[in-house]
Structure formats: C-alpha cells, structure tokens
C-alpha cells in the first residue's frame, strides 16, 4: 500500500511540483495518472521511489516513510519498485540479456556484479521475463538493434527481473505509435493482473487511460483534482482535469496489430 500524507514538493527554483497531496493506493490497483504536461504527474510518480525528494509531508510505501530513507535503506526500497521510462533507457551497446539482468543488481553483491557473476536462477528469471513479453529471440542482440516498441518490452522485462511489488511507468508510450502503445499497455495490464503488482502509469491519452485503468487520478498544477474508479469517469471529467475541452491530440486511437 502506498499512502501520500499532506505531501508537498517545492523545487529549488520555487516551482511547486506537488501541493498537499493526500492519496492512498491499494495493493494490486492499476492507477493511471492523467494531466497536461507540467501538471506534476512525473513529480508524483518519482516521489514514490525518491528520484525526487518531497519537501514536506510523508509518503509511506509498505509502512516505510520513504522520506526518512537514505543510502542502503533507499536502495533496498528501490529494488522493490520497478520503473519504466518514456525513452526506454536501455544501455544501447549492451545485449538485451545484459540489460535485463541488470534488474538484479540491487540484489547482487558489488564484486559479483562487476565480475558479471549471476546465479543460474537469476539468468533463467531474466530469460523467462523476456519470454513473457515475447522478445526472447532477441536475447543476444544489441539493444540498439531493436525498434522502440521492442526496447520498451525489454525494459518491462528488466523491471520484472527486479521481482517488484510495485511498477511505476512514466509516460511509457509517449514515443510509440498507436498499435505499439496498446501492445505495451496490454503487457503492463497483464502483469498487473497475473502477478498482482500495483501499477501506476502516467499517461496523457484519455482513451488509453479509460481502457486500461482501474482508477484514475487527475492532476492539475501540482494538485489532485480528481480521484475515482474508471467507471465514474466521463469525457466531462477529463475536461475538468485539463481545464479545457478535449482535443484530438488527447487521444492515442488505434488498436493493437495482431
């Protein structure tokens, strides 16, 4: 369970990233955060694994206040939180399998990892996860030989190899075309359902949010302006969150190629 308690974040330049957030996210939920760019979606998600440090309040992840963590404690928390990024962030010159197994780094001793020694289980786990996202045949390819969608699937496999309790995805489909976007979202949803991993995704496409989310949190100017199950959400809700009428660019459209 994740709980934001009166959480605020002010950046050094005075910008208010988050304003007094109070949100509770339950285990196994698939939450989509929507909002225009600059609304604080990224700051929200990055506070959870402390890639940014909130300046006020408390944020509990599994009964631990992440604001109090430092050094080893913080690294231990981060091993349990997988994160997926808009630009995939694979090491382009390394092989796919090396990228995926780097998800085990947090569980591996420094010396062992430098010497590239991973247990047999870890290697098999990495391979199994590549299979789950149907990209196991690219095992020994260099990451830069893959297309964008394939790279994002590899990054999902890397996150799974962390055996996370929670997956954060920061605009995971913003650089992909519509069919590939749906494919990536389907994998995320499937993993959420099968492994009961809490998943929090930032999106700005309203149709994708509606299709995949259990619950939608709307943000504007650092504040939560909507929070409710997807069944309560209509186009009107999005207009309220965005503070303007809905345009074509707010929809991803398209369906997955089969």
């Amino acid at each position: 369970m994740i709980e934001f308690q009166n959480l605020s974040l002010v950046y050094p330049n005075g910008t208010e990233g988050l304003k007094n957030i109070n949100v509770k996210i339950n285990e196994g939920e698939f939450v989509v955060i929507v909002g225009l760019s600059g609304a604080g979606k990224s700051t929200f998600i990055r506070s959870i694994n402390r890639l940014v440090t909130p300046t006020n309040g408390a944020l509990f992840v599994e009964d631990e206040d992440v604001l109090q963590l430092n050094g080893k404690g913080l690294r231990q928390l981060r091993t349990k939180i997988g994160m997926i990024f808009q630009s995939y962030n694979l090491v382009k010159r390394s092989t796919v399998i090396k990228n995926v197994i780097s998800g085990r780094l947090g569980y591996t001793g420094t010396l062992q990892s430098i010497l590239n020694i991973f247990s047999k289980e870890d290697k098999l786990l990495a391979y199994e996860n590549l299979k789950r996202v149907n990209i196991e045949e690219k095992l020994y390819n260099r990451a830069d030989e893959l297309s964008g969608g394939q790279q994002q699937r590899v990054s999902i496999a890397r996150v799974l190899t962390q055996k996370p309790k929670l997956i954060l995805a920061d605009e995971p489909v913003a650089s992909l075309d519509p069919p590939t976007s749906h494919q990536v979202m389907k994998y995320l949803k499937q993993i959420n359902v099968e492994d009961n991993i809490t998943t929090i995704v930032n999106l700005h496409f309203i149709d994708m949010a509606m299709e995949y989310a259990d619950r939608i949190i709307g943000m504007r100017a650092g504040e939560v302006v909507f929070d409710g199950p997807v069944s309560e959400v209509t186009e009107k809700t999005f207009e309220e969150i965005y503070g303007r009428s809905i345009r074509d660019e707010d929809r991803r459209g398209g369906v997955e190629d089969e």
Partner: protein
Amino acid sequence: MSNQPLTLPKKPKSKLKLVKRVIVLIAIVLIYIWTFSNISIRWESIFSVRTLENIDRIIPRFFQPAFEETGSIMEMMIETIFIAYTGSLAAAVIAVPLAFLCASNMVRNKFLNNIGMWILGAVRAFPEIVLAIIFVAAVGPNPFAGVLAIAIGSTGMLGKLYSEVIESIDMNVIETLEASGANKMQILFYGIMPQVLPEFLSYAIYRFEIDVRASSVLGIVGAGGIGTLITFAYMNRNWEEVGMILLVIIITVTIIDQISGFIRKRLV
C-alpha cells in the same frame, strides 16, 4: 500567388562591421611584418652557392639508404614502438580517474572539476621532448625515461578527451539503474562503462599513433628508441644511414596509421 520572380532580401550592410574588419586586417598584416623583420632572414645565404653545393652533396645521399643497416635500425624501431605502446597504455589508464574528476556530470563540484582541468592542462603544456629531458635526468638515459615522458605527455590529452566522452553519455540510463536500487559501483560498470569504453579505446589507439611519431625523436635527448640512432648517424655525417632511418620510420608510421584507422572504424 504572385508572378514576380523570387528575390533574396538585401543583406543588411553595417559601416561598423566594415571598419572592424579593416582594423583586424591591418593588425594581422602589421604583426606579420613585425615578426618577419625580427627573425632576420638572410636571403643571400639561402640562395648562395654554398647552400646549393651542400644540398647537392647531402640530399642525394639520403636517397641511397644504407640497407645493410636494416637489422640494427629495425631493432631500434621496435624499441620505439614498445616505448610508445607502454607509454600510451599507461596514459590510457592514468587518464581515466582524472577524466572522471573533470567530468561535471560525475563530480558535481565545480572546484574539483577545475582542479582536474588544471592538472591536465599543466601536463599538456609540456612537449614530450621536454618531459624526456626531465626524466633522463631523473632515471638515466634509457627507454624507461622515454616511456615516462610518453605516459605523462599522453595523459593530458587523453584525460581531456575522455572527460568529454563521459560528459556526453545518456544520463537517463544512470537514473534508471539508480531507480532499480543499484549502487554507485554497479552503475559505473553497468551504466557508464559500456557507454564510454569503445570511445576510450578509440582515443587511446589514436594517441598510440601519435606516440609512435613522438617517441621516434625522444632518443635525441637520450630517452631510448630510434632517435638515438638518428643522433649518432647525424654526428658522423652518415647521411645514407639517416636516409634509411627515415625510410623505416615513414613506413612503420604509415602501417600503424592504417591499422589503427581500421580498428577505430570498427570500434564505435
């Protein structure tokens, strides 16, 4: 749509710009005249009969290289290459920590960055031959002095180039590894090294290429290698041997350039 032919708008002319350019031009010409008048070129001695005779006497002997000396010359050429190789290898390693110190995305402290830059800059300011003189004085006239001179001389350039490579890496990858709970050492080996190693290697090979050329003159001050032979042959006015030494250097350097170019193209 108009039928008028398309014309470029007139380039704005500025009097001030013109004046500036004329001043710069005059300054350059003046400096040129000044320097020329100071180095006292004696045209009459360049075109004297004696010069022509000397050229006529020496140059043809360059083109009759002493092939019988090939064995001993090759031996010294190989020593030269060894000096260059050992020196650049040492530099390629020493430059790494200094480069990390200089890279502003690794050490987020302007003061430390500047210290690193000063060290590298100071080292770069010494020509290899001056370093060689210092090390001959320190460790005696042998190839080891040459290795030290090459190693220190190359560290300055490699450190600077390495730090630029480090500053151009994709920092998102680092953030991603951080987010997965990896520690600093693991991030170095899994996030940074794979991104920088091919470029590091490429620059090190390039520097080795330069070092082969640099180390072939170090012998002139007694720091080992083929330069020693050049000094002896020159002092004995043995121009055939000088010719042969030059031939060996030219061929060796060309071959090494070709090989290093080939390897570097395949690296990145």
